[in-house]
């Protein structure tokens, strides 16, 4: 009936009386019941609460509520704390954790009248690029259920792509919104560092983590940004900068737009068909009046190395809080305090999380700080400077989101091979810039993502560019059939 509509379309339908929030919510809950077992996109579904929120939203709509997300069914990544509802972060460590408060992002969607359908699956503590590190099992790609959905926000991306919600939240530390969005053929937006409050968003790497929208179009991302962005006194890293109306500039023409194509992103390692799809997309921009300029990001090749110091180091500090004392998992029958810490952490964390804690602990251990953490922060400066130099010449930078389309489950068992998945997205986190992935074509039935980056806090510009592309193309309107192909292996 009303499958795969955008926030913008449903907001109109709710106001025209074509449907109600309760009807819409029931429709989505039914779809989740039918489809989720194939995809494993949701960890928790909160039917009763969702229907109560929907009924309240219908009253507000009848009263003339104007916020477009009022009454719209949404899913939160299970990294955002929700009072009274389990927040697992994809980990055994928090499988029993019911937060005593809401994340600010959750509060903001509640205040705007959005309806929370449930909490989505994710790589454990957001550490992964395939959603295979989740304690609750991998998420499957709606375009081919033998393939991964990407990660770490794989559940949110798969849920949006399969229309198991209208919109979802995600978090992005090295590509965790943009890469699953690319793999699932939807729109995923990582705003500038500090643009959205991280209060109640479980910490992974604090100088990199950022929340953002996962949805069906750039216009929807703008609508979600209007809810999510802004200063929060509870998060001292949230920026004190006025929040524009992100939908205001969507229709601006792209005449004269200068697009930079990083030579380093169209180089060895990129699947030629992905390259072709992105280059075809760039031709659309030329038709819209943009000019293409080759640029260099000479230190981009160092971004994965620097990231795998900064992120594990910060993670090892952040995850030291999981000690079995105040909340979360505790091992059975500890013989003493030391035994309790060690067994709680060894049994509560999965292999990838433990690996990163060990790497981070090593990098921060006595005598190694200058060689690792400080060195990585210096490289980070070089990477940021590359972007600042590029933005002297161009307005936005465009390339592929990922070197290829979604791979098969189990195909990448080597951690380093998995880390290199994020080669085009990681530098953006190190530099704190906004980035978006939007659909730009298909290869053998699997979606290709196009990645766009703009300068600090130029979110509105980026959303305008993405929206104009989506007005000219229909890649973002394609819907998966939830098919399962034979494994090639």
């Amino acid at each position, binding site marked *: 009936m009303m499958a795969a509509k955008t926030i913008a379309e449903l907001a109109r339908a709710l106001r025209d009386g074509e449907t109600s929030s309760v009807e819409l919510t029931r429709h989505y809950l039914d779809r989740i019941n039918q489809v989720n077992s194939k995809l494993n996109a949701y960890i928790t579904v909160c039917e009763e609460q969702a229907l109560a929120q929907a009924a309240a939203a219908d009253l507000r709509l009848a009263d003339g509520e104007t916020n477009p997300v009022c009454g719209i069914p949404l899913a939160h990544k299970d990294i955002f704390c929700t009072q009274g509802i389990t927040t697992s972060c994809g980990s055994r460590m928090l499988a029993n954790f019911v937060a005593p408060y809401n994340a600010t992002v959750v509060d903001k969607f509640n205040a705007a009248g959005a309806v929370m359908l449930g909490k989505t699956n994710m790589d454990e503590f957001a550490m992964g690029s395939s959603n295979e590190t989740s304690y609750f099992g991998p998420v499957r790609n709606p375009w081919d259920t033998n393939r991964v959905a990407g990660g770490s926000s794989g559940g949110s991306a798969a849920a949006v792509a399969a229309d198991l919600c209208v919109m979802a939240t995600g978090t992005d530390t090295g590509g965790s919104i943009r890469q699953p969005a690319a793999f699932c053929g939807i729109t995923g937006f990582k705003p500038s560092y500090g643009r959205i409050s991280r209060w109640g968003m479980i910490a992974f790497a604090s100088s990199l983590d950022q929340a953002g929208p996962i949805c069906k179009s750039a216009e929807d991302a703008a609508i979600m940004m209007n809810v999510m962005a802004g200063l929060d006194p509870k998060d001292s890293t949230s920026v004190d900068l006025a929040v524009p109306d992100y939908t205001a500039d969507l229709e601006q023409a792209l005449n004269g737009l200068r697009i930079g194509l990083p030579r380093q992103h169209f180089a060895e390692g990129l699947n030629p068909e992905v390259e072709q799809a992105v280059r075809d997309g760039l031709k659309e921009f030329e038709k819209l009046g943009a000019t293409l300029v080759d640029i260099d990001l000479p230190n981009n090749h*160092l971004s994965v*190395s620097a990231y795998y110091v900064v992120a594990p180091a910060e993670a090892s500090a952040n995850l030291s809080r999981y000690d079995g004392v105040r909340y979360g998992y505790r091992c059975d029958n500890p013989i003493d305090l030391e035994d309790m810490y060690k067994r709680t952490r060894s049994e509560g964390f999965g292999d990838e999380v433990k690996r990163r804690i060990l*790497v981070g602990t090593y990098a921060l251990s006595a005598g190694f700080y200058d060689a690792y953490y400080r060195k990585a*922060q210096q490289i980070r400066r070089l990477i*940021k400077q590359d972007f600042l130099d590029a933005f002297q010449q161009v307005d936005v930078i465009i390339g592929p989101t990922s070197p290829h389309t979604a791979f098969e489950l189990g195909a990448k068992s080597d*951690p*380093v091979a998995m880390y290199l998945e994020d080669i085009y997205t990681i530098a953006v986190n190190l530099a704190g810039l906004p980035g978006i992935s939007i659909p730009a074509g298909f290869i053998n039935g699997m979606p290709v993502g196009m990645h766009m980056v703009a300068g600090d806090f130029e979110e509105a510009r980026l959303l305008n560019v993405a929206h104009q592309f989506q007005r000219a193309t229909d890649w973002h309107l394609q819907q998966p059939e939830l098919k399962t192909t034979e494994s090639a292996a």
Partner: protein
Amino acid sequence: MALDKSEVEKIAQLARLHVDDSEAEEVAHRISDILELINKMQAVDTENIEPLSHPLDAVQRLRADKVTESDRREELQAIAPASEAGLYLVPKVIE
């Protein structure tokens, strides 16, 4: 740059993680691979480059030194693995 089993045990102790003897070789091998990836940055001369510790070079915002949180001890302790009389319980540490 390869780590051996004893170095892995030392780091694991610092991180309060237990690594099984049977897994130690495998863990050492995986971590050595990651360190090899990381060490690519050692080839770059970064002398005189100021480290970027915050992507916007911002400093921490301060607030007035006033109490802003209410007392929610009971609620917060209700989710603890073990608590009693307002205290968190852990295995005995003092004889």
